């Protein structure tokens, strides 16, 4: 036999999932329905009802039925706007949340996919201090982007979201709390400066990113070619622009980034250094491999590989 408070709490949790303090995170997709949509009049709504009251008393006192009719119409329209506000949230579905990439301390861009069967206007999504408003047109999904500030690397649970709307007249505010189970992975913050990876030290002269010294050929200009590669003198003698084509850069040696090399540092400093190296390698389009305790990632290059390595770094205990 549980005590009354527990039972009440259980009931509230079940019936009023969005309002109670014990909001359990939910799996996506989350569909809003009448159990979790709340409506209160806004400050303007309260002020407006006071005004309606004044108009009502005035019309009654002056025994002016036309004015009374006008007041009743305005009051009924205001009351009906409450239902419209409710309906603008009811049935709205949060389908998925996609997270971008961000390093700790920056803000991560979240893309929320919201869908519903009918057009809706002026719905707002609040996440902490950030807020975005959007409209839905028919069956099309709305993609809402919001930035979530981050502080530390690793998995970060999504905070509670608030979907709300004061459509159509701004007199009532309908809202609902959403707490998706989803977490986003925040990459570690790289250190500001530090040594280059030691594995590459014996190959220092190749550290500099260089193109071949020798001019290999001239070719026609293509959109996107850097301006300083244009062979202006040669181009002057031709109809179209010519671009100097340099020899491909030498095969750069691959970086073997290894957790074990960074002895005598604490874990976070190691992670920060590895993150910086990963960044540099990615910038210079080097191929690299990464060894982490319990996780070894073979050599590779490209954005996907970089992301995989950063993820692994972020997930370190």
């Amino acid at each position, binding site marked *: 036999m549980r005590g009354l408070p527990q039972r009440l709490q259980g009931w509230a949790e079940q019936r009023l999932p969005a309002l109670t303090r014990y909001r359990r995170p939910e799996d996506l997709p989350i569909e809003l329905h009448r159990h979790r949509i709340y409506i209160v009049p806004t400050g303007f709504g309260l002020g407006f009802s006071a005004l309606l009251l004044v*108009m009502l008393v005035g019309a009654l006192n002056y025994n002016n039925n*036309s*004015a009374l009719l006008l007041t009743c*119409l305005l009051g009924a329209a205001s009351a*009906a706007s409450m239902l419209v506000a409710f309906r603008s949230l*009811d049935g709205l579905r949060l389908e998925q949340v996609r997270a971008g990439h961000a390093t700790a301390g920056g803000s991560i861009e979240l893309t929320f996919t919201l869908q519903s069967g009918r057009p809706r206007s002026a719905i707002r999504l609040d996440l902490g201090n950030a807020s975005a408003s959007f409209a839905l047109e028919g069956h099309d999904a709305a993609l809402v982007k919001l930035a979530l500030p981050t502080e530390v690397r690793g998995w970060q649970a999504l905070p509670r979201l608030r979907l709300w709307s004061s459509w*159509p007249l*701004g007199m009532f505010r309908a809202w609902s709390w959403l707490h998706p189970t989803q977490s986003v992975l925040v990459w570690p913050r790289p250190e500001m400066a530090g040594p280059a990876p030691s594995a590459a030290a014996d190959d220092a002269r190749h550290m500099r990113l260089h193109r071949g010294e020798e001019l290999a050929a001239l070719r026609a200009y293509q959109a996107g070619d850097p301006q300083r590669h244009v062979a202006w003198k040669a181009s002057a003698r031709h109809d179209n622009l010519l671009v100097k084509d340099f020899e491909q850069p030498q095969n750069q040696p691959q970086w073997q980034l290894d957790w074990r090399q960074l002895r005598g540092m604490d874990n976070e400093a190691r992670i920060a250094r590895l993150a910086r190296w990963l960044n540099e390698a990615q910038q210079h389009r080097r191929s690299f491999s990464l060894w982490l305790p319990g996780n070894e990632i073979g050599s590779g290059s490209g954005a996907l590989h970089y992301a995989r390595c950063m993820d692994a770094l972020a997930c370190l205990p």
Partner: protein
Amino acid sequence: MSQRPARPVPVAAVGQRSFDLLGLGMAFVLAVNAAHLPWWLSLALAFALGWRWWQRRQRAGRVPGWIKLPLLALLTLAVIVHYGNLFGRAPGTALAIGLLILKLLETESHRDVRVGVGFTCFTLMTALLFDQGMVSTVVVALGLLPALATLRALEPAQAPASVPRSLLSPLALLVAALPLALLAFLLVPRLSSPLWGAPSRDQARSGLSDRMSPGGFTELLTDDHPAMRVSFDGAPPPPDQRYFRAYVMARYDGVGWSYRDVANLPPAALDVAQAVKYRITLLPTHRHVLPTLDVPIDAPAGASMRRDRVVMAARPVDDALTYTLSSATQYQLEPGLDEHQRRWLQLPAGFNPRTLALGQSWRQRYGNDDAAIVRAALALFHDGGFRYTLAPAPLGRDAMDDFLFDTREGFCEHYSSAFTVLMRAAGIRARVVTGYQGGYWNKLGDYLLVRNSDAHAWSEVWLAGRGWVRVDPTAAVRPERVSLGAAVAAGDQLDWYHGDWLQGFRNRWDIVNRWWDQAVTGFDALRQRSLLTPFGIRDTDTTTLGVLLAIGTTLFIAIGLAWALLRRQSRDPLREALRELERKLAHQRIARRVGEGPQHYLSRAARTLPSQREELMKLTKCYLDLRYAHDEPPTESVHAFRRAVRDFRAKNVVQ
């Protein structure tokens, strides 16, 4: 109006659309209120509105305080100078509308716009305090469109729409709200007496008064507002018998005639030969007198009959009043007149010597034949070169002398006054009666529309053996006044009279006004109490009304909620069929996991239910084909799939 301190959070600027709509709403308010504002104030406010709109187009921002504050002071001063007061209906309205326009000068934030919209709605209502007609009510209600559209435009992220479209967008909301509004209108308990001082509305409203002097009707005769509407039990009396008496005037002081109200005296004797029953709806006059056809037989409830058969209501008619009466159309009124009733022969000393002399000369010529004297007077009016005009020359001290022997032009007041003086000079008891004569018979609505311009004055003379006899000297001069009505008699002297078709239309249109006056304007506390009479409840008190209002509102809320909660199911038969299959499998504890695709799920089911493996594999293939092989799956195949799902029976798992 005062400058607010700068806020810590930056104020969200108001979009051009919201501002335009707000300005439009305010212009509308100005337009519907212009009729009762001084023209220079309307003009100045319209200019301020236009200037502000132009100014904000150039550069957004509040108008600085050094412009606003003097304008505010100027507005207050102008209202005080013009009305002599800041409070009361007219000055209050003028001030409110001025403040509304000035509010636009500082409107830059969402909050400002919302305050402006609330104030707009309020000032729309003030227009109705001056005119409650149906047309003006509808026009004023249209003013809600820009106001509500402004509020909508404040909301972020909505589909783009043109100005006319966004103006019409709140229409659906208003139409949806109409039933609830009507219910509330019907059931909101009316006050039987005002909460605070009754508004002083009787200013400057022309109407019949208990005093009549030649030329006093001029304003009334050019006023085409309805005065009353009369419907008869049976056929209406012919046009020349539609005399509605208000005041019977005995006293003449040389300038004009006046009625003296004496209560608690029995009404004069009346022998009725023919009577007619009728119902009058009298529009507010702010006076006690109730006009009645010819000679009333009795007084309606809440009114009493005075000694000269003038009907006086207990309270001034401040709201439209409907009363039912019987009147005699053929009768002998006071046939045995008391010799002591000298007041019917009263004449002021030292006025109109020539008129008195003329009356006395008739007495000498015709001897005792009173009827001949009456005929002589009418012949004088008919043949004496008299002219009917609504703009007669002014008269001097001896008004009747001037009129009879000099100007010879005037309208009913002049003729009845001169005739009565002549009769009294000849020793015949006579009096002036004022009221209405004529009216427009509306065939569609079976009622007689009597306008203020139908006000009329005639005379009554007492003839031995016949009692009081009505004599209308105006008819001797211009018979059309009696047979065709005031408007025709006046001809082109009335600026509102524009030929036949327009007048005809106005007269026919009046049936709508009449309906409005009865159904809406006249729906007062009394009518509300008898609201449920058809259902057997004689007296509907405030509690019952409140309960009804609560029930009705709940009903509408239920309907509204049903609409709001209505979910249109996704019309995807394929998905529904799959759902059904999932339900059937779930009974066998093969629930689809979160994020599990249909193929994975169904093959898992097939593994769990080996006996139905074949069937499930077929269903899977069928579903995947329908879902992914086509953009739009063929209807027959979808139906076949649904049938197959329906026929599918999950057998128990053999443990």
